[in-house]
């Protein structure tokens, strides 16, 4: 079986998706990154391998997400794409007439505006986390409940409490205040979900026209209470794709397929055996100029595979053989 692989390494979760030649989803995995993207990618490769037939032949592989360059080195990516584009490509694949794509992940959130099958505008949260998954995770932690429980209980709310949720700190103090005033927990929880949605629409969605059909994807779309809050706030249907949490990886796989088809290339994929290789990731401060860049490097058996993070390309050019002579500026 010929197939294309998409790998999406985000700050909170890592997703892999495998599509066959007709772009049907064959299998996918979803696991936590836990601050160790290399391990997560290797574990993901192992997990997905188990689900696949023996004869699978990887024809193309693309990486996406915030650790896309690192992941690209490990798997041998044919294409490295930003997550805004891959999410849009996946959404358009399943819903060709989509006009708005809401995507909320653990640490970031995005909004993509599509008209006539073309992305015409997008926005991404900058520094504020109040419109992302971590906002709810944080509150769930405080209330000592799982995010699933939070979502279930919030769904039963009849008369939500308005939580001032402009930022995580304010939301927290306001929530404590509302608890003390004796409001029902369900109503407070749903109030939090509404606060997240308002934050999202007020930050990322500011000045954008959110026309239906609206697709809601990313890990936070698991949370039915948030879906409900979006529906109520936007007063329209909000579609959650079945594989909403792996859409980035699916988009990457689709683009890998497209890329390989147009260029007729041979995949750089390093094989599933890569999951057993020991990689070593480290970083150092370059002292060659006052920029003092934090340069990251990844090596295998003492061989440097790649370096990045410098403001200039000096480290990308230094090959591993030259390493010793450059030791003094490290």
């Amino acid at each position, binding site marked *: 079986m010929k197939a294309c692989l998409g790998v999406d390494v985000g700050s909170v979760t890592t997703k892999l998706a495998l599509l066959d030649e007709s772009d049907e989803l064959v299998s996918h995995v979803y696991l936590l990154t836990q601050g160790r993207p290399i391990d997560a990618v290797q574990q993901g490769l192992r997990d997905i391998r188990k689900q696949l037939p023996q004869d699978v032949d990887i024809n193309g592989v693309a990486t996406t997400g915030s650790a896309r360059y690192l992941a690209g080195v490990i798997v041998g990516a044919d294409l490295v794409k930003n997550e805004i584009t891959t999410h849009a490509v996946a959404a358009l694949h399943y819903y060709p007439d989509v006009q708005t794509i809401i995507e909320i992940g653990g640490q970031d959130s995005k909004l993509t505006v599509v008209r006539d099958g*073309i992305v015409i505008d997008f926005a991404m949260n900058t520094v504020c986390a109040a419109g992302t998954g971590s906002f709810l995770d944080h509150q769930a932690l405080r209330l000592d409940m799982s995010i699933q429980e939070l979502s279930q209980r919030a769904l039963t709310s009849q008369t939500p409490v308005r939580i001032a949720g402009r930022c995580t700190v304010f939301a927290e103090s306001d929530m404590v205040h509302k608890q003390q005033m004796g409001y029902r927990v369900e109503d407070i929880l749903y109030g939090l979900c509404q606060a997240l949605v308002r934050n999202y629409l007020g930050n990322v969605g500011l000045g954008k026209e959110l026309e239906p059909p609206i697709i809601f994807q990313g890990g936070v779309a698991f949370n039915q209470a948030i879906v409900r809050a979006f529906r109520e706030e936007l007063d329209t249907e909000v579609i959650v794709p079945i594989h909403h949490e792996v859409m980035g990886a699916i988009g990457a796989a689709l683009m890998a397929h497209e890329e390989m088809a147009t260029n007729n290339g041979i995949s750089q994929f390093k094989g599933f055996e890569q999951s057993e290789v020991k990689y070593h990731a480290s970083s150092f401060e370059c002292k060659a100029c006052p*920029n003092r860049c934090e340069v990251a490097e990844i090596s295998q058996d003492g061989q440097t595979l790649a370096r990045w993070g410098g403001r200039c390309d000096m480290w990308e050019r230094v090959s591993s053989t030259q390493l010793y002579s450059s030791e003094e500026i490290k």
Partner: protein
Amino acid sequence: MTTVGIPRALLYYQYYPMWKTFFEHLGAEVVVSPPTTRKTLTEGASRVVADTCLPAKVFVGHTVSLVGKCDCIFIPVIRSLKSKTYNCSKFLGLPDMTRAVVPEAPPILEIEIDINRGKRRLYQDIYKLGRHFTWNPLKVKEAATAAWQSLLDYRELMYRRELILPQAMEEITGESQTGLNMILKSQTVPPTTIGLIGHAYLLYDEHINYQLIRRLQQYDATVVTPEMLPGNIIEASVNKLAGKAYWTYEEEVVGAGGHFLESGVDGIIGIMAFGCGPDSLMMDMVHRHATRQKTTPFMCLTLEEHTSETGVITRLEAFMDMIHRRKQKGEAVCV
């Protein structure tokens, strides 16, 4: 011989050739601080209150790096260049702010340019500045005339020969403008034209904008900047979009933005500093027009010290993808 230090920040980008000519004609030597690095920025940021805008922090960092390398530092204040337009208040207090936060700095040479006070006053002020170097008014006059001419030449290089500001600066001053060497792999994508809007000190400081222009060129984009547009054209589009200009450097944002929207570039990228009052108003105006017009993609990047490089690059990549896919699709329809 007196050495005049010039911080490579804020107004440097637009006026350096003029200043250099002026001081050199008066027999002074000119030194410019080296390109911005992380050190410049942390040094500057550590000396001013936290909510100072990024370009002003960079400016302070550059003045610090000039200490010990010159006999005086030149900090002009541009109040107004046209009747009833005003400059951002950050510019007006630069000399005083510098004295306060960089006490070890050598004496500061100032000149205040305010066209509202009349030409006579301007000439007097130029003479006063020149008197630090010579008592001969004719020499000052000659230096000022030569300086003005080099500014005109510099501008002409940009809008007639379409050189990007650093290239024009290199050509006219013979001084290399690049701090970093970055050989970028070019990508196989359809060529595009991207209009940039924003102040020169944001567009051309490669450290604070993450080498924006080079990254765009790597995508085979032809970059058009506000300085490449003739003055009368952008002035006209300011009037069209905003009525009458209020800010001194409104042309760089609203004027250029309005012109790009009309002339049909493939995309417009606006660069502004976080917490900048004038820019947030002006960018918003361009954004609203772009939204209404619906044909030209617009993206505004906000820079501050804590902006993550990945975030900026992701946005830039997505923006270019958007334009490329749009083009491909458009061509597919035409065929």
